[in-house]
């Protein structure tokens, strides 16, 4: 039984290390920022998640106590990675990309949401009863 747990923990640690390395390598190698975002947000988060699960299993096996700190860290990292990626992508879009020249047309009267204000419709009016929920009834 001990051997089985050791194999499981070692496997998780090795998988975490490989994923972390792949994420950082992607950050260094990929050609521009929008592709570079994929490495850290997916691979590195998965690698840290595997390491945290390994740590949880290790302390459960050694000291027979289930610590909630790893779960907290995992939850926090998994929640914040997409937010960080969204912020970085948005700042990149506003600094480096010309919306008239670099982006494809949206096919409507209005531009991309990050650059143009959203179109005003009847649903947006304050105190309006004809919202999406009221229209169904």
């Amino acid at each position, binding site marked *: 039984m001990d051997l089985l747990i050791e194999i499981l923990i070692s496997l998780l640690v090795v998988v975490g290390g490989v994923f972390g390395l792949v994420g950082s390598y992607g*950050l260094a190698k990929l050609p521009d920022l929008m592709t570079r975002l994929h490495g850290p947000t997916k691979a590195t988060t998965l690698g840290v998640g595997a390491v945290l699960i390994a*740590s949880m299993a290790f302390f459960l096996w050694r000291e027979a106590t289930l610590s909630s700190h790893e779960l907290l860290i995992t939850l926090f990292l998994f929640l914040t990675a997409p937010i960080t990626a969204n912020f970085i992508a948005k700042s990149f879009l506003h600094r480096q990309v010309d919306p008239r020249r670099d982006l494809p047309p949206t096919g409507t009267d209005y531009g991309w949401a990050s650059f143009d204000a959203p179109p005003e419709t009847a649903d947006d009016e304050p105190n309006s009863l004809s919202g999406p929920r009221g229209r169904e009834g």
Partner: protein
Amino acid sequence: MITYALVFALACFALGLLLNLYRLAVGPSTADRVLALDTMVINGIALLILYGIITETAVYFEASLLFAMVGFISTVAYCRFILRGDIIE
């Protein structure tokens, strides 16, 4: 067996830190550098957790939790600064 796996993972994350440092130095845009710093924080958390497994103490969990929070907040603040020129409007 766990020791070898831990050494392997430590080497992987340390190499990852070096690759992040390369991206931090080369750039080319500010958003790239912010992304590299954010990834460095995540790799540092992994290193702390692995070191905690090696020394078999639970002391480093609080440190890594603080690291995660400070890293997230600093990344968001830097992005706001790039976008708006100000952090708290």
